């Protein structure tokens, strides 16, 4: 019996499929249990399952959420922050990559310095932007020194403002190097043979960019854009420090409802967590599908 069993085990261990999954298992189980557990717990609690004295599954929390006067403004603000941050980061990041690639003198040190923000945690970025863009911040002092503004109040309110300018600036500041480094890596891997060939054939600078460089960049840059969107959509500490208090972005709203003294708001917090998770998943999957189609169409 045991001989039979060990024989079976030996056969398995030679089996490639078994070996593959056995090696993946620790990572998948760890992530699956923690992430899956979080999603499961939030969803079941948002449906009122497991709560003390709960009559059973219900959509009450979602109904309350949709009736919450802050919910839709919060959706709009979060989308605005994520979309604007993504578009600006991608445009500026790609631009930065194209610029850095052309640098001849000091390219190496400039590229290294360009990456400086990558490891900097968001809280630090938020504090730095606070000291930079606040009405009595560094830029405001510069404009005062130049005589453009007389008092802090003359400087435009870029923090705690309805358009979340400070939050977006922080995100762009942090993500431009990310997009830029990805774009640089792609460009470098591709080399510039094709561009040179296009130039030889008489393509203008714009034509070279549109028909050669852009198709090369597109797949990687679109994936990066999806990632930047997800990051800026899930932002928490940055708007908490630099954003207006009403409406709050969805992650901040979820935390407010979760830590509310009124525990009755907890299911709504769970519902918010579920909604935020679903939005990100849908955007990522749909975005990836669209990106693939765009790449095919670009004839890359």
């Amino acid at each position, binding site marked *: 019996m045991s001989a039979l069993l060990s024989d079976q085990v030996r056969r398995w261990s030679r089996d490639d499929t078994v070996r*593959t999954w056995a*090696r993946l298992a*620790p*990572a998948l189980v760890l992530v699956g249990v*923690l*992430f899956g*557990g*979080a999603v499961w*717990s*939030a969803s079941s609690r948002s449906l009122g399952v497991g709560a003390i004295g709960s009559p059973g599954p219900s959509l009450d929390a979602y109904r309350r959420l949709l009736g919450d006067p802050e919910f839709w403004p919060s959706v709009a603000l979060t989308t605005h922050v994520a979309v604007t941050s993504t578009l600006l980061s991608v445009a500026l990041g790609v631009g930065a990559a194209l*610029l850095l690639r*052309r*640098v*001849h003198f*000091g*390219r190496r040190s*400039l590229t*290294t310095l360009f*990456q*400086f923000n990558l490891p*900097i*945690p*968001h*809280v*630090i*970025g*938020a*504090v*730095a932007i606070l*000291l930079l863009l606040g009405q*009595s911040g560094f830029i405001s*002092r510069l404009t005062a020194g130049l005589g453009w503004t007389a008092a802090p109040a003359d400087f435009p309110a870029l923090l705690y403002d309805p358009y979340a300018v400070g939050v977006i600036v922080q995100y762009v500041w942090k993500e*431009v190097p990310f997009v830029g480094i*990805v774009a640089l890596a*792609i460009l*470098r*891997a*591709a080399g*510039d*043979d094709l*561009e*040179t060939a*296009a*130039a030889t054939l008489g393509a203008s600078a714009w034509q070279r960019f549109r028909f*050669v460089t852009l198709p090369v960049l597109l*797949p990687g840059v679109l*994936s990066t854009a999806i*990632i930047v969107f*997800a*990051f800026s959509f899930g932002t928490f500490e940055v708007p*908490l420090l630099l954003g207006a208090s009403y409406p709050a972005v969805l992650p*901040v709203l*979820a*935390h407010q409802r979760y830590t509310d003294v009124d525990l009755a708001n907890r299911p709504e*917090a*769970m519902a918010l967590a579920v909604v*935020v*998770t679903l939005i990100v998943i849908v955007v*990522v999957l749909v975005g990836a599908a669209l990106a693939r189609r765009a*790449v095919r169409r670009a004839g890359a």
Partner: protein
Amino acid sequence: MSMLWTRTPTPRSTIGSPPVAPSSPEAGRQPAPPATPTGRLGPAAADGEGGDRGGTDHSGTDHSGTDRGGTDHSGTDHSGTDRGGAGTTVAAAALVGLLLLPFLPLVLASLSQGYFHPQLLPETWSLRAWRLVLAPGAGTWVALRDSLVVAAGVTLVSLVVAVPAGRVLGTRSFRGRRAVEVVLLLPVLVPGIAVAIGLHVTFLRLGLAGTLPGVVLVHLVPATPYVVLLSAGVFANADLGLEDQARTLGANRRQVAWSVTRPLVAPGLAVAALFGFLVSWGQYATTLVVGGGRVVTLPILLFASAAGGDTAVTAATALVHALPAVALLVATARILGRDVPTLGGAR
């Protein structure tokens, strides 16, 4: 939060693999057989030409500068990416300066006393904030310790599970691979606050809320996928055929692992580990919820200070928090610089 892994062997990789660049255009054109350096690791990956030296398969990124002077007699610029002159350098320097600008007020504020509008430079320079922040018994030290302990735990656990998984993902194609990549990507992309709220109640019940192990566990959600996917890139670009050669020559399993595989992948895995560390190092929302105010890491301390504290102390705390991250990035760049072939695949 932001740097991805390298090429994986299957050309159609997933959604979120930017440098992987479902590499249709590049792959066909790269003459070099083994690893096309389609995508490289985040930082230092693209630092100028440095890494390319010694690479034989590089299709001339660096040639155009010389080409122009030499072969191009027609007077028009036929180089696809003509190298700019001093103007380009100035523009790039301005861009980099703009990105570094936010650190300036941070440094100035940390060295000041009563640094008010409209002073551009502090009227009174002072080390007061630094003395407070670095005083023995200051909260900074506890926060630094907790941050280090948590990040070290996260790094260790994620690396242990990432090495076997990364090897499989980096070297094999199998059914379900795409699903695995999606399962690994979602936790990175789903907002941390949602994950933390979901886990918190369960952690309360298990006694993990408000503890260092609880915080390590919640940090593992975003950190592990990074380390796994970066490790996959490392294995994808390592010349593991050498293992077979060693085996043919009679090396046993342990000898192969220690003398062949380890030197091939160690630098890359070190970088992967550093990223795991950095992901944990920057976590705020997850620590706030699961730590419940009892685990005070540097981000928590910094935020509390920023939300209602002494600006100079906040600035100094921010710099203390930033320093290890920057040091790690420099270390990463050096590892990559020394051992580019492993990661860049430019063998």
